[in-house]
């Protein structure tokens, strides 16, 4: 199985290398290389899942590691870790990725950089699969950043558009902020425990080597990485902009897989989170789920609606994990991956047909694009939580988990209430999207006439994904395979471990019942309202928009986060950078140049002193001597009489002197 895992990892990498160097010269520009590699990876992942299923053991595990970086005292290994979660995630990622590769052949067929597109898809698949397979914090951080890179490349794929280039940069940098926090968390874990490997870290924590506030801090910091990648509040701002990328990319990376990596990572490292850290996760998830849902209510761009719904659903998953519903959160991750990929590909099919993303340009497409319509509708029902579609089961599990948490800790009941409201809004805005896109009469006749159902290569993936949105994994079966891990199971013998939260079977039972009814009720209410407004037109959206103008404006402007960050973080950074540069030029370099100037000034002064004073004195001596010399010269007349006279005078003077 390890061989399979390695091949799954290396195949997309190989495809990337081939595509980037010779893709252009291959027949069909090499789309079959990447697509083939992905399907192969899928077929290699199937046996792993089969093995996991056949062993049907919550502790199913295959690991292997190799020496990688050896410092002598510290040895960093590269390892592969396969357990039930990995096996399921492998299938989810390889299957969805394969289908999206297939879909892309149709969607991107006339793009001039067709081969590069597939190269990028391959490097993304490689990074994502690596992220799932690695066995430690060091490895996950590496692939974590690499999926960030592929996301950057694919968002900015149409880089001639400034908006796409901006969105790519924004995504990378926003993610980096989360990543740095995650890195800080890894710093704490590694310096305290000396290992990167997940299981060894868990063991160290279970044995109490890292605990208390420091462990909470480490957990929250690690979670910050997930906040970036899974677009949680307050780092969610990049995901809606990421819709600048090609739609299949939005489906694969910014809906189904990469953005779920944060949720996956929290699940993978679930036992390191203390009760406080989990509470932070739950609240961040709640805020995200609610806020994104409200924004989605008013968006006009079909991809933006889906983008905000993704943010919202990721919030749900975090609520699940944060309230202790480990299985629920991960279950929603899996179901969401399928139905959200389906919804995005459906929207892509529509966009492909009408060449617009504005829902104002659509309408009535139901008749023209039946396959797209029906599959999109299935996806919508799934995400809205209508039984028996997949989303119902997972969302219900999350709500139950939140309710149970609220019943045990009544002060945190607000998590359940707010999440429930967000679930209701989901039904509303998704049905709204369906009515605006497919229902009613065409609003743009020209675009409508041009529209047509997409080719088979695009509709087949839609149908396959729709199957997964209808059918669902049996909850009890999943609950068994993805049992919530207990920290105590990692402890060395004889060590007592305090669990973050105990089970409350009776509460859980009641919570499940209430949650199920309330979630069906709220989803039905959302759908009903949406139908009243957009189908039966009993309620006017415009009138209500006017009536609730301030709230509408707030939602429409996405709570002004972009403006806020632009005015604070970005402007602040640029300001400091300008100041630093000026300081560098004027003060520090100015000082250096001043030293040089003073030195030269001094040297000139010194030179002048030398010429005027020192040399002047020398010259003065000479001049004095010269003066006397010149005076004395006048007596050198050359006449003997004068000399004799002078000699006589001298004798007389000497004589007189001697007399005294």
């Amino acid at each position, binding site marked *: 199985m390890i061989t399979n895992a390695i091949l799954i990892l290396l195949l997309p990498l190989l495809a990337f290398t081939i595509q980037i160097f010779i893709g252009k010269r291959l027949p069909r520009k090499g789309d079959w290389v990447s697509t083939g590699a992905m399907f192969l990876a899928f077929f290699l992942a199937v046996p792993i899942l089969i093995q996991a299923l056949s062993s049907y053991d919550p502790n199913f595990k295959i690991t292997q590691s190799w020496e*990688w*970086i*050896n*410092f*002598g*005292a*510290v040895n960093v290994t590269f390892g592969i870790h396969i357990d039930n979660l990995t096996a399921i995630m492998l299938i989810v990622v390889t299957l969805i990725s394969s289908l999206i590769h297939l879909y892309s052949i149709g969607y991107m067929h006339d793009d001039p950089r067709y081969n590069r597109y597939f190269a990028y898809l391959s490097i993304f698949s490689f990074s994502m699969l690596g992220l799932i397979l690695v066995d430690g914090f*060091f490895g996950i*951080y*590496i*692939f974590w*950043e*690499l999926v960030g*890179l592929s996301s*950057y490349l694919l968002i*900015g794929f149409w*880089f*001639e*558009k*400034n908006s796409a*280039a*901006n969105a*790519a*940069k924004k995504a*990378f*940098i926003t993610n*980096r*902020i989360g*990543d*740095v926090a995650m*890195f*800080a968390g890894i*710093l704490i874990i*590694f*310096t305290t425990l000396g290992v990167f490997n997940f299981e060894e870290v868990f063991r160290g924590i279970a044995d109490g080597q890292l605990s208390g506030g420091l462990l909470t801090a480490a957990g929250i910091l690690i979670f910050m990485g997930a906040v970036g990648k899974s677009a949680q509040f307050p780092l969610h701002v990049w995901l809606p902009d990421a819709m600048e990328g090609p739609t299949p990319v939005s489906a694969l990376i910014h809906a189904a897989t990469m953005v779920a990596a944060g949720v996956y990572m929290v699940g993978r490292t679930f036992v390191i989170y203390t009760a406080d850290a989990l509470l932070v996760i739950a609240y961040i998830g709640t805020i995200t789920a609610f806020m994104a849902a409200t924004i989605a209510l008013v968006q006009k761009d079909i991809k933006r609606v889906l983008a905000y719904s993704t943010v919202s659903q990721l919030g749900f998953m975090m609520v699940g994990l944060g309230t202790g519903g480990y299985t629920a959160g991960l279950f929603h991750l899996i179901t969401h991956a399928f139905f959200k990929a389906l919804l995005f590909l459906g929207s892509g099919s529509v966009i492909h047909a009408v060449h617009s993303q504005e829902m104002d340009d659509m309408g009535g497409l139901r008749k023209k694009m039946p396959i797209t319509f029906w599959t999109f509708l299935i996806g919508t029902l799934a995400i809205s939580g209508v039984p028996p579609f997949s989303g119902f089961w997972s969302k219900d599990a999350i709500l139950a988990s939140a309710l149970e948490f609220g019943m045990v800790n009544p002060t945190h009941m607000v998590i359940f209430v707010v999440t429930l409201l967000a679930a209701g809004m989901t039904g509303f805005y998704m049905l709204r999207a369906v009515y605006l896109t497919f229902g009613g009469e065409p609003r743009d006749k020209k675009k409508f006439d041009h529209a047509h159902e997409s080719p088979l290569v695009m509709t087949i993936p839609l149908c396959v994904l729709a199957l997964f949105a209808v059918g669902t994994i049996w909850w009890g079966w999943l609950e068994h395979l993805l049992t919530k891990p207990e920290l105590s199971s990692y402890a060395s013998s004889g060590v007592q471990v305090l669990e973050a939260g105990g089970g409350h079977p009776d509460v859980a039972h009641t919570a499940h019942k209430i949650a199920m009814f309330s979630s069906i009720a709220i989803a039905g209410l959302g759908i009903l309202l949406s139908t009243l407004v957009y189908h039966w037109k009993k309620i006017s959206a415009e009138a209500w928009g006017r009536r609730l103008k301030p709230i509408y404006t707030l939602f429409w402007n996405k709570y002004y986060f972009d403006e806020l960050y632009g005015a604070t973080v970005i402007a602040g*950074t*640029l300001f*400091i*950078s*300008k100041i*630093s*540069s000026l300081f*560098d030029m004027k003060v*520090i*370099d100015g000082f*250096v140049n001043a030293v*040089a100037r003073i030195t030269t000034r001094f040297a000139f002064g010194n030179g002048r002193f030398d010429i005027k004073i020192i040399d002047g004195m020398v010259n003065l001596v000479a001049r004095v001597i010269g003066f006397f010399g010149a005076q004395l010269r006048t007596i050198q007349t050359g006449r003997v009489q004068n000399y004799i006279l002078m000699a006589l005078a001298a004798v007389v003077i000497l004589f007189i002197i001697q007399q005294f």
Partner: protein
Amino acid sequence: MNKVLTLITFLPMVGILLILLVPKNNKTLIRVLAATFTGLQVLIAVWIYINFDSGTTSMQFREQYKWIPSFNIEYFMGIDGLSVTMVLLTAFLSFICIFASWGINKGVKGYFAMFLLLDTGMMGVFCSLDFFLFYIFWEVMLLPMYFLIGIWGSPSRVEPDGKVRGGPYAAIKFFLYTLFGSVLMLIAMLVLYFNVDIDPNTPGIQHTFNMLHLMDQSLHTGVLNDFNVRLWVYAALFVGFAIKVPLFPFHTWLPDAHVEAPTAVSVILAGVLLKMGTYGMLRISFPMLPDAMKWEYFAYGLAILGVINIIYGAFCAMAQTDLKKLVAYSSISHMGIVLLGMSGLTSLGMNGAVMQMFNHGTGTAMLFLLVGVIYDRAHHRNIDGFGGLAVRMPIYTAAMSLAFFAGLGLPGLSSFMSEVFSFLGAFGSEMFNLKAITIISTIGIVLTAGYFLWTFQRMFLGELNPKYKDLPDINGRELFTIIPLGIIIIFLGIYPAPLLNLMKTSLNELVEVIKAADPILLGLQ
């Protein structure tokens, strides 16, 4: 081959002699000669790499002769795990730079002669084990550098504000600044010389410049027994080396020198010369005065200066509009990581720091080469003056994005490894509490991503600037200089062991030696 270090150091000198014999109009022959001799140097470096025993901490390929016996000055060469990495880097970059200099048409003979002289100087610094010899090589490097920037750099010009800038200004700034540092180093060297006695029986007679003796704390006598004196000596050495790194606030010569220097000289300057500073600390300051290094104020000072370099350098880089200046400031930022890694005195940090020296050498070399490529075509380096080049120059764009991503520490590329381990080493320091400092410095990771991606967007993305619709893509010769660097960057990013294994024995030993040094045990306090 027991004279291999002499060979690798003085081979370029032979090249100079031959070049001087060639008539100055035969430019091709001069270039070929320079390429041949640096090429031979690379072969010797490869031989050294193969024959280097990474399991021992002692100096290898030693050569030791009496040179000026009356002062106990020796011709003493030898390398260990620390210097071998720098020797490899120097040989490799010198060779590549000859090709990057192929387009130089003015004073070709002088240029390549100077270049080879610089090569000898650099090699000598990394191979000498006699402080006096070290000092001579150190000074030998200054002279050719001065001329290379002054003559072959950009011509003198008057800025709008009336200041005179240009090659000659930058050259003299570089020269004087470094010379100032050298003087401090000279003083420290003399203090060490006069206070280390080889023969304890005859105190005050047998002085030495032999570095291995200078490192032996039991031979320290006289004023070196006074801890305060040791601090002063350390400080003098530190400033001398800090100017070379360059550490804030001694860094302002660097942007000027880079902007005015020709491409290949920038590559050498950033790729090799900056490493002299940190190399000097690791080879001289730390092992000779370990207790001073561990003095709280110096240890924390080192880490704090490292952080200032990282963050301040990144902020300054962000504000630049000249691409070359941006890369220069990014060097300042990246060298800060070396300082931070060293300051924690851990195996991880020390190895990470020296890896970072090597990886910054290759990464920044690639960046400067690529800046040269676009400058040769567009004749300017104003970041905002481009736009959309990715459409027109796909290969160049790919190369630049590799270099940029290496610069911002993307996993899978070499500098990621060294940065991560430098941070890990500093954060996990047992001797000093550098946790807060390390956390602050991680902000640099975000800032670096910010300025590199922003620059990338302004130059390569968006609509193609119509001015450059006919710009030719990178050519074969330029690719030849860049591809090897790219391969090294990717390879060491995935598998850093070949580099790490070379150095770790020596560096782990160095850490142990410094850790073990105790001012009280030595009777020095």
